[in-house]
């Protein structure tokens, strides 16, 4: 193992973790929706994509990246609010909810193509984080490194929300037993809508944050949804810890898979998924 090889592998490791952070931003919102509200949102990848489209549009128009991030996150958040308030709320059956969100995928995929066309859209890395740093002699983009603390911050925020505040517990209780929480006098409907909107906002945020690296193109919704589902299922549905660990695991697997066996890296990912599901159907940290 030459020192060059070591450095290369280390650099790949950092890369995998950074990639995992992008996946985490997606998985986090998904996990919020499922963990608290037991909703599986198949449109989550589409939310990610819409966040990127809107964010890039605003970011390029205004010239301010941050504004784009805000626009992307908020617009998708609103989209989520609407979806919950006017559609998902009326469906009690979880399966029905899955089907509904599936339909949303079809709609958003065509809508984004109608508005922004079929060419890829991208945005330059914000000036503040542009450029690269030398890690052990190898240039590494600053922006990717920044994603790591951003992802961890989001994880921290979510953990506080779900474990430390009562809000998370309240909404969970509300999902499990609507009448009771109604009796206690908590506006469960408003909270549900807000939580769902929050999860959507995270997806939009993730999409825009990832856009300087992966751009946005029709088909991104399916591409990222597939990876996102792998992450949450491997990590365990409903577990924040699972989402974090799962994203990093998949990020590393994808990176090393591509580095060592580029042509079958895709099979590798799904193989991991299948193996985890066979051994523990509820995922690594999931609670059956």
């Amino acid at each position, binding site marked *: 193992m030459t020192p060059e090889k070591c450095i290369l592998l280390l650099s790949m490791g950092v890369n995998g973790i950074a990639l995992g952070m*992008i996946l985490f931003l997606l998985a986090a919102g998904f996990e919020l929706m499922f963990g608290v509200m037991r909703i599986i949102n198949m449109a989550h990848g589409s939310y990610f994509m819409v966040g990127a489209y809107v964010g890039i549009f605003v970011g390029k128009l205004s010239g301010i990246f941050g504004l784009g991030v805000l626009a992307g996150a908020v617009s998708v958040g609103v989209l989520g609010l609407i979806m919950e308030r006017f559609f998902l709320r009326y469906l009690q059956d979880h399966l029905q909810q899955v089907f509904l969100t599936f339909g949303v995928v079809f709609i958003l995929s065509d809508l984004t193509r109608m508005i922004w066309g079929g060419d*890829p*859209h991208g*945005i330059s890395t914000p000036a503040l984080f542009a450029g690269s740093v030398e890690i052990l002699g190898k240039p*590494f983009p600053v922006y990717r490194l920044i994603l790591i603390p951003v992802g961890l911050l989001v994880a921290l925020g979510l953990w506080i929300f779900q474990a430390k505040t009562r809000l998370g517990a309240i909404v969970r209780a509300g999902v499990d037993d609507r009448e009771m929480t109604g009796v206690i006098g908590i506006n469960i409907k408003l909270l549900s809508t807000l939580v769902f909107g929050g999860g959507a906002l995270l997806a939009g945020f993730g999409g825009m944050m990832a856009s300087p690296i992966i751009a946005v*193109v*029709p088909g991104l919704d399916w591409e990222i949804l597939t990876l996102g589902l792998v992450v949450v299922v491997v990590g365990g549905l409903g577990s924040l810890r699972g989402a974090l660990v799962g994203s990093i695991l998949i990020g590393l697997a*994808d990176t090393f898979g*591509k580095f060592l066996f580029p042509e079958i890296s895709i099979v590798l990912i799904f193989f991991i998924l299948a193996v985890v599901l066979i051994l523990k159907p509820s995922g690594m940290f999931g609670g059956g």
Partner: protein
Amino acid sequence: MMTQQEKRGWAMAVMLSIFLVLVIGGFSTVFAQAKPSPGTKGLIKIGWIGPLSGVGGEDGGRVLRGTKTAFEELKWEIAGRKIELLVEDSPMDPAVALAKLKKLYHDDKIDILIGPYSSASGLAIRDFYHTNKLLTVSPQAAVASLTQEKSSKYFFRTWNASGQIAPFEGWLLAKLGYRTVTFFAPDFAAGRDQVLGIKKAFEKFGGRVLQEVYFPMGRTMDFAPLLAKIDVETPDIVYVWAFGGDAVRFVKQYADYGYKKKVPLITGTAVADSFLPAQGDAALGVFMTYWYGHTLDTPENRRFKKLYVDVFGAEAAKLVTPYDEQGYLAGKIVVSGIQAVKGNVGDVDGMIQAIEKLDFEAPRGQFKFHQHNGVFNNYLWQVNRVEGRLLNTVLKAYGPIRQGWFEEGVEIAERPVPGK
């Protein structure tokens, strides 16, 4: 507020009426039989198939625009007969392409076909157009066999056959003085063929290929681990063949990780004008080989771009892509064929003979056919800032290049750059 009963009633009414509309609509579709176009009078029906939805839909739309322009120029009339263009969407699925062609031929009674776009579709419809003696001009469908082993006198292609341009790129790399190269290409037939073609020529003219890295097409978000192979063994130049999201990501990440400063990047597709807005400054200075670009300064291209402004407005003409051009070319070729037989499209052999003899100025430069495949010049481009936006500008010109030039050992000449 409606009661539950009322709501259900309405929902049911909607569902059943949709069902009825579908049944009726379905009837009209499945039973529709158009009237045949009688001999030399009446409409000339030209079919067009290509992707308008899904992957490739954007570019397919451009090809269609170009084709329409060719007919628009003549106000949709040749030799006193009106032209009707029947467009069918075949989203990159050969089975659909064949089904739509059958519809166009049997039901809509087209006289000539423009299309298809994808190679697989070309192979799928080959026997059909050959058996039915249908003149087919394809703006793309690169798979070489359509003009070689599986050639048909009824088929013409305006694009390059795969294996025509790739060796040119290999030859060019050697000529420009690069001794080693590493390839990046998507893992499918066309991608591998492309690399093979370049490799053959590059090695013949003295070059050495360090690595060939294939990635899953359309599914690679992160190229960093693949790019790391450049660190393992560093070539003189990196060649990438990619389009769409892959192209944007590759070029951006190539710059992000600092490779652009170390090793020059050249491509046959990845910095096409339509990708530049998404790639931004990451694409500056990247080289490309292609036979058309927005800034190409031939007199025909200037005229073509002005035509676009007239037909589609200034906004659409802001960026004219190779897809617009190849659609236009296909249309013009069909027009020439029809004009040669004075509108008598029943004389298929007459049209074919006329098209075979074509030799004219296209927006991309001089164009003619060799064994039913396009012969044209190729250019070396570099991404620059032009009038405030990023576009490819021509550095050098070469040609003409035709199918099989490499196998026959034909020399390629350098030519003057148009407009200079």
